[in-house]
């Protein structure tokens, strides 16, 4: 089966970022073609996601073997001569485009005058549609067509696959409360459905993300530059109402509803590179739902169904997010914990060790790693990925965003996945700096590894006693590393990654076993 995952707009970018890490940790294991569609091509969320993707691909490039981690290949689509994972539906001169000048519609001034106010007609689209879905639809109707790139290439690819007996599934992720996602989501659905709806080997589904964050427009800001959060829910409702009114014409076979009653407050940024929302659990949940869609038996995708993730009503009210709220939670929890242990143990234990020249002279190194040219560069790749991951994971755990530097934001105690304090502790003061682990921080990491998983207060039902003593974490890892059997066919860096993964996995198994 070929899997296509399209993310749309700023929210979609956040989900793409989550996809990278879910792929890295092996929750999303399969290869997937990805495309991010965003009129605001410079928005910070997309830049962050693209950096995450880049760091992942740099690591992925080091691996030729099939591991439990880093197994996913994120394939770009061909767009003309190049292969790209992003697509901007706007004309090139985005900073000056608006309804009044958009070539396809400018001449229809009377229709425009009836449907849009003068201010909206003249508002520029350089930083997106500011939540105006109807304007988004104007552009998407023009740019997302089967005779235009990359859509014609994608259509042809789908056709080739289907014709050769293969199966294709497309999953879209976008917000329903904004301007881009809400308008592009149905347009893409319609585009491919029109071409392939009669083919049983083609299915299209998606996740619609409802408002899960909000912000307050500063009193000194130009309010017209911002999509207004008060409109998020009314729009969401109307958008879905509109999709639903399409009834039989609705191209989707499954639509997942996703959101959060407790909306996280984020900093108010009008768009472009300033739009840098912190990660959110809703985003990685969307990837788990994508996986669910890809794994669903085709027979169960005959008719449109709306799905959602069940969470205890009271826990929802409280805003709790717990491991058991996540679909396939045992697997997800294990993989999250393992990968996070990997990241932290790499940063706190392995990386400092591996960069020691003396260590390279040790018998262990020579036995397990061997000759490893340009190891430092490869370690840098790993570090960058883990660095980004930790920052992402911290973002998932913060409460209201009071500062663009997540280190300065409060941890949300209702997000009961990880004990996120350690992430915050090891992040540099300057958020743009890389994590540099000092001895003290290394020690702190070592002492935190056995309690990475969130736990409640002592005596509460959520409390657990780690099996591995906190001062023994690194010892455990090292002892394990010394007794591992590693395939000699692996390259040195593959061996290293394999060691870190296996030791972390064993650590998690040992430490959190009941």
């Amino acid at each position, binding site marked *: 089966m070929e899997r296509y995952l399209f993310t749309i707009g700023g929210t979609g970018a956040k989900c793409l970022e989550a996809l990278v890490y879910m792929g890295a940790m092996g929750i999303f294991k399969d290869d997937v073609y990805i495309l991010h569609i965003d009129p605001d091509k410079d928005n910070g969320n997309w830049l962050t996601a693209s950096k995450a993707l880049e760091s992942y691909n740099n690591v992925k490039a080091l691996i030729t073997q099939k591991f439990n981690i880093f197994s996913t290949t994120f394939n770009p689509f061909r767009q003309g001569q190049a292969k790209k994972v992003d697509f901007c539906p706007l004309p090139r001169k985005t900073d000056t485009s608006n309804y009044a000048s958009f070539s396809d519609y400018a001449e229809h001034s009377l*229709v425009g005058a009836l449907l849009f106010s003068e201010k909206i007609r003249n508002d520029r689209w350089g930083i997106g549609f500011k939540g105006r879905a109807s304007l988004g639809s104007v552009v998407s109707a023009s740019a997302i067509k089967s005779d235009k790139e990359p859509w014609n290439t994608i259509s042809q690819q789908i056709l080739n696959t289907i014709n050769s007996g293969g199966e294709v599934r497309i999953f879209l992720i976008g917000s329903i409360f904004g301007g881009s996602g809400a308008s592009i989501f149905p347009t893409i659905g319609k585009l491919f459905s029109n071409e392939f709806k009669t083919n049983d080997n083609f299915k299209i589904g998606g996740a619609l993300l409802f408002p899960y964050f909000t912000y307050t427009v500063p009193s000194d800001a130009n309010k017209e530059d911002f999509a207004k959060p008060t409109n998020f829910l009314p729009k969401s409702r109307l958008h879905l109402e509109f999709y639903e009114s399409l009834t039989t014409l609705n191209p989707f076979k499954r639509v997942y509803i996703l959101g959060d009653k407790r909306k996280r407050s984020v900093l108010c940024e009008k768009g472009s590179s300033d739009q840098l929302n912190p990660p959110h659990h809703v985003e990685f949940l969307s990837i788990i739902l994508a996986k669910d869609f890809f794994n669903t038996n085709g027979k169960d995708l005959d008719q449109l169904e709306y799905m959602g993730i069940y969470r205890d009503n009271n826990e929802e009210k409280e805003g709790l997010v717990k491991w058991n709220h996540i679909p396939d939670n045992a697997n997800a929890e294990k993989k999250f914990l393992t990968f996070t242990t990997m990241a932290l143990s790499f940063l706190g234990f392995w990386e400092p060790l591996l960069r020691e020249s003396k260590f390279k002279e040790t018998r262990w190194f020579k036995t397990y790693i061997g000759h490893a040219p340009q190891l430092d560069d490869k370690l840098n790749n790993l570090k960058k990925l883990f660095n980004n991951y930790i920052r992402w994971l911290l973002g998932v755990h913060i409460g209201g965003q009071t500062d663009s530097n997540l280190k300065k934001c409060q941890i949300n105690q209702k997000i009961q996945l990880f004990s996120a304090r350690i992430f915050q502790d090891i992040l540099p003061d300057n958020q743009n700096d890389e994590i540099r682990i000092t001895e003290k921080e290394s020690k702190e990491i070592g002492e935190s590894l056995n309690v990475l998983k969130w736990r409640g207060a002592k005596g509460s039902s959520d409390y657990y006693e780690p099996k591995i003593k906190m001062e023994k974490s690194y010892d455990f890892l090292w002892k394990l590393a010394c007794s591992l059997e590693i395939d000699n066919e692996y390259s040195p860096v593959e061996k290293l990654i394999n060691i870190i993964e296996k030791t972390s996995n064993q650590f998690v198994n040992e430490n959190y076993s009941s």
Partner: protein
Amino acid sequence: MGGFFPELDEPIVVSAASNGDIVKITDISNDFIKKIAVRNYDVEEVSTFIPNMWSRVVLFKMLTDNSLPENLKTHLSGELKGLLAIITLREIYGWDVKMKVYGFNQHEVDKIAKTLYPGTENIQMHVIEFHDEPIGGCINSKYYTGFFTSAEYNLPTVPWFDNGLLRDPIETGKTGYLDIKNVKDALYCWKKQANVSERYLDNWEEESSLICKVTDTSSLLLKDHPLVNATRATKLPIDPQKIFLAMPKGNKVIIYEAEDCNIIPVSGNTYKKLYSYADGGKDLVCQLIEKTVSIQAKKLSFNMTYDEIAKIDELPKVCLWPDFVADDWDEYYLWCNKLKDIAIEPITETDDGKEPTKTETEHSITWKFSKPPIGLLIKKGEKEMKEIGVVEIKNLEPLNEVDNLKKYEVGFDFGTTHTTIALKTDKNEIKTLGVKDRICWLTTPKNKIKDISIIKDVYAPVIDFIERDFMPSGETGETYIDATMPTVFKRKAMGDISSATNEVLDGVAIVAKKQFPPYRIVPDRCKETEVIRLMIEPFLERLKWKGHPDRHYIGLYIPHLLKLLKAELRSNGISMNNCKINWAYPIAMGNERQETLRNFFGSGDFILESEAVSYFFDATLHSDTPCISIDIGGGTTDITVWRKGTLLIESSIKLAGNVCNEYLKNNPDVLSENISRFDSKLEKYKEPAKALMKAMPESTLSMILSRYSKNFIDHIAKHGIVNEANLLNLRKLMKFAYTSLIYYSGLMLSAVGLENIDKVNIYFAGNGWSHLDWLFGNGNRDRFDSSIDSLFREAFTSLDIGAGKLEFKRSPEPKLEVAKGLLYQPVGSEKTKITINPNAKESILGEDGFEVNGVSKSFNDRIDDTTVIDDKFPSRFVQYEKFLQLFKIHGLPKSTDIMDIVQHNIRENSNKIEEPPFFTIIKAAIQKHWGVKIRWD
């Protein structure tokens, strides 16, 4: 249940599930969408809320579907109500509100219209303008039919425009100078119309279905729309006396009266308001009681005292066409003649965007409307015209809607002399379709029309109306507009020109005289014979396809006929769009002419007249017995030979009723001979006319009589029996000419080798045979006068086709059978190129398209039975001389006597002559002996 969901007013209902389960939401609409909590929203951004370019339209659809969140619903329904209140109350407030069709071109359909909803390329949009500024629109499509307000508008003069938005005027109580009760009253009438209650309209609840499901948006702003009727029920806080009294200004109030016509003493504008208070004008009553005039509409009445009643000697003669109203009919003509001190103007309802066109001539004015006017404003005065009152238009019959599922066929036998029409109903019944003039007389009672018809000064404008204004004018901008145009009346009885339903339309009146009036003024002192000549002469001209200088009138005449037909069909509940029109054409008609007709008649079947007749006689034609159909019309005779449903041979000859006409043109006094048979002082006017109408020159005579009526008959009667010789001469001519046709049909039979058969059936079709009835005093149209019958049989016998084997059959309905035949199922007949029997005793000339022994025959091959090439004419015409032997007429020219004429005609007209050369000889003989030239083309 809880989950990772947005803020909901109530939890989603789901059966047992555990944390982390991916569960199905079974009722997405009710269990999720409608539960999404909507607290606040930004009003300015509402227009962009739907992910569709038509966001605003979709929002209003959601409003009508009752699927909006409550607060949005309140806001948008307020806007909608505010917009509808503007439309409803526009007249009361004096606002200029229009609804204009927005025409999407194909590019816009692709780029814009289709994006509203998949498959809605047929979207129609009307833009609602308030003093030329767009304030909203109305969409009519499969997806949504209803109104929406613009994304922004500025309406400072509208009381219920508040803080940038239209509001519900009732809810807000902002109605300006009008009392809120009046506004409520104005809006109340909608309640009577609607059945469905929609929550979103709250205190306008019953109106919702009406408002939001407008199917015909273009009619919204017309008076007959219920929405607009609202204004009729409005009680204005204004003294009605001040509104409705609009008498001529001055010291005295005068009531004007006109005989046979009630003039309501109000101004045009006042009448419009009064009319709107009455039920379509039906309940508007005007009475004069002593010194008081009382005018009552349904809801209003007022009285006033007048000082004086003045009689109007003569009102303009005003008529309206057609005499019915229907939603799908949009062509109405109002005609009036001009008088010196009285003028009329039509009063229309509120503007429907289509201005009437007005055509003024020296004698008359004609208006053309898309909707009939509601009244006529009468003005009077020598220097300055003042309004004195209004004449209501009440007699138009409202027609029901057309059933578009039913399909019909029309058989249209067009003739330049006569036209007949037959209709095949949806139940396959075939009947003739009469055509009424459908003129509704407005200022003159119908029963008095006959009186004016004989007064030439009055009648002239009537003719003018019928002939000039009602007819479509010329398309090429040439002289058409100045020409008198045809009528289509056949007056069954004198004076009855308005009510008769005519089965045979008389088109001979296509007299292309570019003069007005279109008839001769006969000097007082004039010899009787000269009087008759003067009367007849203008009407002897004929509209023919070729060679006639005025044949372009055919281009006006046919559309006119079709227009009459369309009205007649519509009055029978049939739309011409649902009719297939089958059309008959004569054999002689060339491709170019056929093409011209096809342009008029579209996709119907084109069938030869002779074929149509044959279909009418289908049963006999399928027999083994050969059948000859001789269809004599006004100018052309078509002869066909059939056997076993197969057309064996056909011929078209330009020799028919025109022979008689041409003779009459030279000898008009011959008519008196016929009329002289009747001698009662009173009856002599009636019966001769009746007889004449039935007889040959009916097309000519009907026109003459319609113009001169008793005068003409009187002249003829006075003339007495002084020209019997001329009459006898005409009889001989007709015998000679018609027998030549019979003889030739025998030649045709012989040429295909069928002379030695047991029996031959001969059908005499067409109207031309009736000439013989008239000339030979035969009252029985089923058979011929015995002398004629004998002569015809003798013609066949001379060709060795036994007289005992001949069976003659006259057509009971010589014109209608063609029209009816057009509607019969084809008999599967086919033309066959036959090989002329080389051993046939009687040789025949080759016809166009025929071959003799495989060799195509040119024109010169066709001259009699010998080869004739330029100077090699035969020394005599064998067949002609054989034909001559049938007659005992003294002095008939021999071959040698007419050789010069034949040679001359052939050399001069060889490119025009398309008929068998035998008739070139016959025509030469007629020219030689009777002095009558029959045209070649």
